[in-house]
């Protein structure tokens, strides 16, 4: 062949060899990322398992109360409710990325929605201090049957209408409305008595059916969540099948949004700045039991669990592996960012635990401008949210810490 053609072939061959030999960039942390994602699934499952078993214990205690209403069974039911909230609060770190808890069909609203439409459920105190026997419990005509299916159906009438089931419904049915002055009966919550489940109380039997139905629904929903995250569960399979970066984006989005916006903003700042003149003490999520301080602490702990890669279960046993944690991954990529995140995490936990109990008394007394313990905790959680976003950036990911609604 002629000289030009020969040169052309030679040039082409060199070019081809060049592209074939250029190596793809290999991620030195690829294995660690896979392990972090897998470890996350393990601690998610462990915390949902605890949420499930404590919910079953709550269901048992509620059934006991209804069949044998005494001070003892009543107190046991309340204790079981508080115990059930401990692991559940930690699972809120798995929200905000359309996971099983809050995708289009997710049970988050059914489990934990707030505020509760008290009048829609049971008797309430009127503006003139009389008892109004309103609500499903006192309306046998419109609602002849009270069971899990009926209540679930009512709660789904187009969006978040008339919240009437979930943890806070059970809370309301155990404690009742909290109108007790924050200073006279500190942290005691509402003053329902066990006699509301005995035959001296109007429609006590329907109240019993209602609270049992709510407990049944919670157990059902948590059972479904547990199944999704089980070793061969549908969502875990999907989650582990994602590219590591996509899974990590979801993990960081959940804790970033919870820290920066949902917990710091909606749960704490909103309650803090609520207008004192109009009884703000109950703009707190666990307003009937005065348990909001635990909600805040368990939410913050849930974030820490994800960062640390571990979860301490209800039997004090540690699940997960810190070597396969977000913190370990961030350290491998950027020690400076990891260090800032660790500081922010420690400060957030300290500040949150320093909020005086009960929450409703504290927010009534503290003003935004005081830079008091609640405000400091808000700022610390926001800072933690920002550091989580920075960690994402260091990993080459982008997350938003805004509430997705």
């Amino acid at each position, binding site marked *: 062949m002629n000289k030009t053609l020969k040169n052309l072939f030679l040039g082409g061959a060199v070019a081809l060899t060049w592209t074939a030999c250029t190596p793809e960039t290999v991620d030195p942390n690829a294995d660690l990322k896979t392990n972090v994602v897998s470890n996350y699934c393990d601690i998610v499952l462990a915390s949902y398992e605890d949420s499930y078993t404590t919910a079953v214990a709550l269901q048992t205690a509620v059934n006991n109360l209804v069949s044998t209403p005494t001070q003892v069974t009543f107190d046991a039911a309340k204790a079981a409710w508080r115990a059930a909230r401990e692991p559940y609060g930690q699972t809120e770190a798995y929200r905000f990325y359309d996971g099983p808890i809050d995708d289009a069909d997710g049970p988050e609203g059914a489990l934990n929605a707030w505020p509760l439409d008290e*009048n829609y459920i049971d008797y309430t105190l009127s503006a003139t201090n009389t008892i109004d026997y309103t609500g499903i419990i006192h309306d046998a005509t419109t609602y002849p049957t009270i069971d899990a299916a009926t209540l679930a159906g009512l709660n789904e009438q187009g*969006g978040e209408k008339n919240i009437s089931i979930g943890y806070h419904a059970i809370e309301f049915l155990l404690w009742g409305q909290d109108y007790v002055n924050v200073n006279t009966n500190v942290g005691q919550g509402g003053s329902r008595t066990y006699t509301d489940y005995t035959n001296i109380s109007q429609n006590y039997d329907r109240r019993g059916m209602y609270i049992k139905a709510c407990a049944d629904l919670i157990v059902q929903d948590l059972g479904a969540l547990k199944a999704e995250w089980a070793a061969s569960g549908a969502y875990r399979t999907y989650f582990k099948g994602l590219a590591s970066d996509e899974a990590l984006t979801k993990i960081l989005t959940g804790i970033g949004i919870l820290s920066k916006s949902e917990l*710091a903003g909606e749960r704490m700042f909103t309650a803090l700045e609520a207008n004192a003149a109009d009884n*703000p003490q*109950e*703009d707190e999520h666990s307003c009937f039991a005065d348990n909001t301080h635990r909600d805040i602490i368990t939410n913050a702990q849930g974030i820490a669990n994800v960062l640390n890669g571990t979860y301490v279960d209800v039997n004090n046993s540690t699940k997960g592996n810190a070597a396969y944690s977000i913190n370990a991954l961030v350290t491998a990529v950027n020690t400076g960012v990891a260090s800032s995140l660790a500081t922010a995490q420690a400060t957030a936990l300290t500040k949150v635990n320093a909020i005086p109990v009960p929450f409703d008394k504290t927010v009534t007394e503290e003003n935004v401008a005081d830079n008091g313990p609640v405000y400091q905790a808000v700022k610390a959680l926001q800072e933690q949210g920002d550091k989580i976003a920075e960690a994402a950036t260091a990993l080459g990911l982008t997350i938003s810490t805004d509430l*997705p609604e």
Partner: protein
Amino acid sequence: MLYNNYWLVLCLFVTALSACDKERVLYPEDGEQYAGGETTFFNASRNAFGFSAPNLEGLQSLQFTTGNSFFNQAWVTAVASTAGRDGLGPLFNETACSGCHFKDGRGRTPRPGEVFGHGLLIRLSIPGTNTHGGPLGDPFYGGQLSTGAINGVNAEGDVDITYIEETGTYGDGTTYSLRKPTYTFKNLAYGAMSSNIMFSPRVANQMVGMGLLDAISTNDILMHADEADVDGDGISGKANYVYDVEKSTMVIGRFGWKAGEPTVRQQVAGAFVGDIGITSSIFPNENHTSQQTAAQAAPNGNNSNGYELDDQTLDRVELYSSALAVPGRRNWNDQDVLKGKALFFEAGCQKCHVQKYRTGTHPRFSALSNQTIYPYTDLLLHDMGEGLSDNRPEYLATGREWRTAPLWGIGLIEVVNDHTELLHDGRARNVAEAILWHGGEGEASKEIFRTMSSEEREQLIAFVKSL
């Protein structure tokens, strides 16, 4: 031989030149992808409408989360221990703002088998006006049909919608079909409607960029007004003048399908009382009429000032509604999108869908001041023809007149709200249908669209969807 080669080369050269001319590259305007100026946030997921303006600072960004809380959480029946959140109804359409403005997005018509709702409500009035020249409510049903009520009170009624398809043809022979709705009231709980009742179906609008529209100066709006069509271009936009309660005077209207509300603040307060039954300092009277006795007797959630929405809470929801980020453009520098943009301007769409403004000083939220924004609206009323008329005046707006809808965010309704329905009653099933419904002042531009080639129509639609 040489002569032939020379001629060949010349021919090739000329061909090449003319071929290059057809592949002229179009360029976007510098910065047009920042539809909301510094309030723009780039996200095209189903959360696209829910982000706060990134330039919100300090305490305001925390206060935004309070506004978010009151926008999203349900209101409950009075009297509840959550005293800041009770007072729902007694008559309502939804229990929370997010019920209609789901994910801060656009409402739609009900699908077969669904209950009426999903972000569509019906306004009511009888002939005449109230003391400020606005719509006069029905003596029993008031100014809006309440499809929900608290326990012990009857909801006002329900609505059925049926459609008639009207076919047409594009210039290139392709057929299209538009659906015209008919509404029938049913299960009316308070007797028959007045025989001369007027009604208007209204879909909930996406919430982005509202505060920016508040910050456009009145002069910049009036600059485009030409009620008498003095310039003879066929467009005769006119400002609506509506009553501002807090200022006790008539001011230019900006919000709502007929520009019936003057400010985001009053729009929010109006929606609270009309749609959820929550009274405020601006609207301290419940939405039911004196004829609805069970509603009259029901407990309210009034605070120590005598209304249900705390002043601070109104401020927070106003902030929230004003400062949602405008989503950044998608594909703004795509050649087909830019060709579509050129066609949009050639067809004269921008005469009403005015592209761009620089906002003035916002009285309350500095993040919204001095921003270059691209809302594609003149905020003025235009006669859109008989086909779209609701036959119900609203202040200076006649039945045929509608405010130019802002187009920002329109392309994201599909991913956020899982539908593509447009226009005041959601009758248009996509952008093409929405354009084809343009009559009256919009007829000429509609005709230009209708007679474009199929490729050009697709390009124009691609442009609109990039907004």
